[in-house]
């Protein structure tokens, strides 16, 4: 069985930042592996360790700068990686769900995996839609917000738990091939070992353009325009207690006594 993991490098924003137009100024951003994708990689690598998956391949849409993040996935146990980039993607404010679907679908068709894993959402744009969209596009089955996966795949089915609201889990069987969007907490992502990091440098990282994977540029036109970005207005009338830790904690203590919840 082959597993493919869609991995994204996301931008993290510092506590203090400035907005320039419809972007956050670059000096306030840092790049990292999307948190949810870290769990997806771990799940795929565990499937390989359990002898169920023979090969774990990652795919990333991103420029050369994200290769360090891709190497993180390789260091954690993925066998090889594919990176898709193209001049036409350069300068896009956001790559929308439809464009990502076109690109990822083309790679998945070429790789022909039995299982596609990806994070529930990306920490930066938070669309949470690409996995299901890709599945539909390819005629695969899918499960969104998966927080448990049985590792036996009896009768060609993936048995998953989907995390619903309110501490309820739905148990669902899905036919393979399937796309699962992975929720945090499904496993404990490993840290890459030093050996893993060394090995990752030697693993295959294949770089392809849109034409290499047969995607026409016209199919990746973003269907919306980001028209504004701003800091949300504070709607609160929060009382901020001023002073050192001793002073503020005694104000809190006073409030807890007034409310009668602590003595």
């Amino acid at each position, binding site marked *: 069985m082959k597993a493919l993991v869609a991995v994204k490098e996301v931008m993290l*924003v510092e506590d203090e930042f400035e907005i320039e137009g419809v972007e956050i100024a670059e000096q306030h951003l840092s790049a990292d592996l999307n948190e949810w994708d870290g769990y997806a990689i771990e799940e795929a690598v565990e499937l390989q360790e359990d002898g169920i998956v023979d090969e774990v391949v990652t795919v990333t849409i991103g420029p050369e700068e994200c290769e360090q993040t891709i190497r993180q996935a390789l260091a954690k146990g993925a066998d090889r990686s594919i990176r898709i980039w193209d001049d036409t993607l350069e300068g896009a404010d956001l790559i929308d769900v439809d464009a990502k679907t076109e690109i990822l679908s083309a790679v998945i068709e070429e790789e022909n995996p039995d299982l596609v894993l990806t994070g529930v959402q990306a920490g930066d744009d938070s*669309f949470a839609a690409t996995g299901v969209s890709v599945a539909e596009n390819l005629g695969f089955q899918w499960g969104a917000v998966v927080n448990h996966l049985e590792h036996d795949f009896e009768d060609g089915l993936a048995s998953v*738990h989907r995390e619903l609201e309110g501490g309820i*889990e739905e148990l669902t069987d899905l036919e393979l091939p399937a796309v699962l969007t992975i929720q945090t907490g499904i496993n404990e992502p490993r840290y890459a070992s030093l050996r893993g990091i060394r090995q990752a440098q030697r693993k295959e990282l294949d770089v392809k353009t849109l034409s290499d994977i047969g995607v026409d540029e016209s199919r990746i036109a973003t*269907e919306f325009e980001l028209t504004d970005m701003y800091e949300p207005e504070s709607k609160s009338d929060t009382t901020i207690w001023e002073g050192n830790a001793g002073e503020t904690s005694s104000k809190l203590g006073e409030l807890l006594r007034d409310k009668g919840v602590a003595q």
Partner: protein
Amino acid sequence: MTDVLAVTDHRRGDLRDISYELITAGRELADETGGDLHLVIINGPVDRFAQKCNRVGVDTIHTVSYGEEFNHDIYTQVITQLYHNLAPKYILTPNSVNGLDYAPAIANRLDLPIVTDTIDLETDGKSLVATREMYGGKVETTNQYEGNVVVTIRGAEWPAAEVTGDAKVKPFDAEIDEDAIGSTVTGFEEAVGGNVDISEADLLVSIGRGIEEKENLDLIRNLADTLDATLSSSRPIVDNGWLPKNRQVGQSGKVVTPEVYIAIGISGAVQHVAGMKGSDTIIAINTDPNAPIMDIADYAIVDDLFDVVPELIEEFQ
């Protein structure tokens, strides 16, 4: 004229609150250009649900009785067919776990753009302006779409429609292709993890990522013991296995309503806030004055928890 098709959410025989919020959001959107609001109820006791959803603002309720529980294959087939019948400009769904399990498939099948987790919507009949957050709520963005769009809406952003209306209720005769159903719901499970019920507590001491290391949890346990409070947490602490699932406050955990909720090192992601905003008094201890939790806290200490918590323990010892 902008017609809207909104898809209700239900689970285990109950309509979820977001179904009523969708009516408000859908009506607002349809009103902006004088369109109709259509509601669809798929699976479950659809007639009972149709009665409950018959609120002012809804023009037509389409019911599809086919199986008991949510099934994304059925939802995808029904909504696609209904879209072809009604030709609404916008398909509105909840940004719930189930909404996110079919809305992207519908968008793809109908070749429409999708915008998820919206908190505000406006239309002039031609284009849609959707407001949503990025970077974990640090910024809001407006996004303009032309043409027809699939939109998922965040819970609790629109008030629930409350007044009974006189919508037409029409069974929709969807043609379900059984061969295209590749998923089966086999059951449900409740979160487990001991007998502590955080939803019963008067005083909750809740911890988030700010605790940094598992070992530091002892400090918070010490505080909870000293105050005779119940210990709870945001999602990452449970994901790390540092506390059991039944201690998790939030959308996918428990909804709590204590007298006092002390949020320590919790940034206040929307999923967490969904579970604790009903607390009588909220106190935040956080180094980041711009953390979203500061917006909903009644009182806040902008300081390092490792400085404040020991002082607080000392005060009550």
